[in-house]
């Protein structure tokens, strides 16, 4: 034995080592793939995390360099006068938004995928349009619609005769509603792929046993979707805790403070850019998210209970709702009106006005196309639009490619799954500005000349959107029964071949939905391009933000609507292409 040990260490035995590697690769090439993937993800994710932790523990010197080791950022975080109250508000806000997003998105996804309701296309188009509307505009539109001088309160005043506005959007429910609506398309697209893959056999069995539609949905459909629902809830919840724009725009004036408004306001209030506190907050969130992921992992471990796509005739059948299908169709249309028609009409009204004002008869006489002319005549748009589309396409493609393998390895709990899951989820907690500064310093230190180019932005975006891609792939895989892969093993397929030949085609719809989601999110990301764009890699979101800071609201609305129209056309085109290629984002 000893001789073998010694011998194997000799350089002359290299062919033996190669053989060992070859055998290892043949036996379980997924382990090696996982190792390679872990290295790639670690290279993407760990440097910014290192920066984050380091930044939270060191003061910033006047010249911008890191100073002495300190715990002050964490101390001031804990000494926040109303820490408990803002933390509670944060939880209510995040939980509420997750509930709104999942309810709105889930009901629609169920109707679209599992029933024979009419008018389903509205739901899909609605999801695309609301993702295409620039983030700030979507919030502004809702503030207008629900605001004290918005159409709803005006109507209420007409009806009740009271002078006081009926709805007060600047409240916790207003914040929850707006944030929840922002995440509804994510929930819808993700749950569509989940519900589509749910095996109808269970539902039919329930119906045969005399259960009505509601009972079936409650007892079978929802229970089968538990892992996906939880994955989704977890993600929206984390984003809700981390969200800043909606609490700041909607809740600040009534002093409904959440953790982020407390922290980022301090950041904005100081003269010097000092990201220490924001970093410390992100580190605390990072730990909290790891704990949540641990518990989530325990649920996902028993995921085999939820696998419904088996070798025996998997294509699910739709439920016949009878006359109820018209009610379901009405729900889809009403939802479309809320998610798309109202904000778009609100924006259209604003865009047609010479100055900001509520809806009135007088306003109809003031209508003008001047704002649209301004928007169309603004310089630099073509270059920015090209950059934006290239960036969004590249980001979505790279992210989904990484996520497809990650999601499978994690869902199957293969070797290294825990590590991969952590790596792929951590970027969720990065405040955009902290990630951007980290990326800036990393690429300035690297000898590769990509600083300031679109490729640096693409790498930064890939890190940022990895968690979303991974969740889409993960929930897609969860429902595929292992027996399909086992059949492949029996036929002698290596693990990677099982993934490529069996799993990948089955999760293609989930991946396509993920691609579209990331594509649209990337086109409207603002926090990173602001810091990372060079003179030749400007994007549209930054130009929109210029108008938001210093243009009239009416011009911003016109500009935003034109961009929304372009993005919607592109998203629908991509969707149609996917359908033609047989990768259905929506069931039939």
């Amino acid at each position: 034995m000893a001789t073998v040990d010694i011998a194997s260490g000799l350089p002359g035995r290299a062919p033996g080592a190669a053989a060992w590697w070859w055998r290892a690769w043949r036996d379980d090439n997924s382990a090696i793939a996982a190792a390679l993937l872990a290295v790639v993800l670690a290279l993407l994710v760990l440097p910014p995390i290192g920066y984050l932790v380091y930044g939270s523990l060191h003061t910033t010197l006047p010249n911008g360099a890191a100073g002495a080791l300190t715990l002050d950022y964490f101390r001031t975080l804990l000494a926040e006068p109303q820490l408990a109250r803002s933390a509670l508000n944060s939880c209510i806000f995040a939980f509420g938004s997750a509930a709104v997003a999942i309810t709105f998105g889930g009901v629609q996804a169920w109707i679209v995928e599992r029933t024979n309701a009419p008018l389903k296309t509205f739901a899909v188009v609605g999801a695309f349009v609301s993702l295409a509307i620039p983030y700030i505009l979507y919030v502004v539109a809702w503030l207008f619609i629900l605001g004290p001088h918005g159409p709803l309160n005006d109507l209420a005043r007409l009806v009740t005769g009271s002078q006081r506005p009926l709805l007060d959007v600047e409240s916790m429910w207003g914040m929850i509603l707006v944030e929840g609506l922002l995440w509804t398309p994510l929930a819808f697209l993700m749950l569509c792929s989940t519900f589509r893959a749910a095996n109808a056999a269970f539902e039919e069995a329930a119906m045969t046993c005399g259960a009505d539609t509601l009972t079936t949905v409650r007892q079978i459909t929802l229970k089968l979707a538990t892992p996906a629902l939880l994955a989704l809830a977890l993600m929206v919840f984390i984003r809700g805790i981390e969200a800043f724009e909606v609490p700041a725009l909607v809740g600040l004036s009534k002093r409904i403070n959440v953790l982020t408004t407390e922290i980022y306001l301090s950041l904005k209030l100081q003269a010097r850019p000092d990201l220490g506190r924001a970093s410390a907050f992100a580190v605390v969130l990072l730990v909290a998210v790891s704990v949540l992921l641990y518990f989530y992992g325990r649920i996902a471990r028993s995921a085999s209970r939820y696998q419904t796509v088996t070798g025996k005739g998997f294509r699910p059948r739709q439920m016949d709702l009878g006359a109820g299908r018209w009610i379901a169709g009405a729900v889809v249309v009403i939802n479309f009106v809320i998610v798309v028609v109202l904000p778009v009409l609100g924006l259209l009204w604003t865009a047609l006005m010479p100055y900001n004002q509520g809806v009135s008869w007088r306003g109809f006489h003031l209508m003008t196309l001047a704002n649209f002319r301004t928007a169309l005549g603004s310089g630099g748009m073509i270059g920015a639009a090209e950059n934006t589309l290239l960036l969004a396409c590249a980001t979505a493609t790279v992210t989904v490619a990484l996520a497809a393998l990650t999601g499978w390895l994690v869902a199957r709990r293969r070797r290294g799954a825990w590590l991969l899951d952590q790596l792929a989820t951590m970027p969720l907690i990065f405040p955009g500005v902290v990630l951007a500064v980290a990326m800036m310093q990393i690429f300035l230190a690297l000898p590769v000349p990509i600083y300031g180019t679109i490729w640096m932005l693409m790498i930064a975006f890939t890190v940022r959107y990895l968690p979303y891609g991974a969740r889409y792939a993960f929930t897609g895989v969860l429902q595929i029964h292992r027996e399909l892969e086992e059949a492949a093993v029996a036929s002698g397929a290596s693990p990677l071949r099982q993934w490529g030949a069996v799993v990948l085609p089955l999760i293609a719809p989930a991946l396509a939905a993920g691609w579209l989601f990331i594509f649209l999110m990337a086109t409207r990301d603002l926090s990173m391009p602001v810091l990372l764009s060079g003179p030749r890699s400007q994007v549209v979101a930054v130009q929109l933000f210029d108008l938001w800071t210093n243009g009239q609201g009416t011009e911003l609305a016109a500009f935003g609507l034109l961009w929304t129209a372009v993005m919607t056309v592109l998203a629908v085109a991509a969707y149609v292409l996917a359908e033609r290629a047989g990768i259905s984002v929506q069931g039939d």
Partner: protein
Amino acid sequence: MRCRWHEPFRVAALIATSAFISSAAAAGLDAAVIAKAKQEGQVLFYTNLIVNQVVRPLAAGFEKAYGIKVEFIRADSQATILKVVNEFRAGKTQADVWNLSSGLDSLTDAGAIAKFKAPSADAYPPQYRDPNGTWVATNVYVNTPGYNTDLVPANVVPKTYQDLLDPRWKGKLVWKPNDISGATGFIGNILTAWGEQKGMDYLRKLAAQDINPVDASARAIVDRVIAGDFPIALQIFNHHTVISREKGAPVSWIAMEPTTLSLQIAGVTTGAPHPNAALLFVDYMISPEGQRIFQQVGYLPADPNVPAQVPALKPEGGHFKGNVLSPEALNAGLDHWTAVYKQLFH
């Protein structure tokens, strides 16, 4: 700022006229500098000015005059500082010319900005240029209250800071919590103009008015006032109200003395890749024809000899007192004013 950028003809005409005089104005700069600048052929400009309103006209005017290409990146002051400082510290300075409205000391402390001598600055009053020669003002801002003319009848419009304490305005006032165009600037203006004791007495009374904090740009706050969500905004840019008023919006501004006068400042970076073109571009912006571009697009030129398009918007033309919050005053006071905001209003 004033939106004239959708009128390309006007801007083109303006550039054509400015090209005539440019050779005369640049006479102050050494011919050797101009020759070297032309050799360098380009300049990279980091700014928080709005691209389509003023940066493009400036770049076009400069290119026309000297054949030197101007590339630019627009970001707010904090982001511009993060970029300049990090690039400088990595030894990879990209920007030639920097331009911002707050946070100068971060650049100074990092050593990221260089001294320069722009001859056109000689015509400027001392508070509009740095005695050490690291910055010069390109344009100024007047921050003061604005109001909805439908909701605030002419006979009750507050004229003085004392008038703002009238109980009728309780809960009716709005500002943004940060920035010079927000609570920080308002507090800074009061404390530097009136001194610590009198100023704090006043601010304590003002705090009882329950001012609404809105985290949006000063421009967006004007739009909220126009829509009728709030009758009075405390610290907006006066020219924004004029732009909207021209379109029929029920809004106006009050020259509440002293108004806050703050500066947009520019200079050259340390280790600028195109140092001569950088100097030439800074000088161009503050020269009479550069200043006329600011005027034409509705910004308030820093040069006292170049009036604003609506002359009443500048203290010289509108005959009101402006309290200049210089970059140094900002450096010295900002942390304190922020603390006062947190203590009294947050």
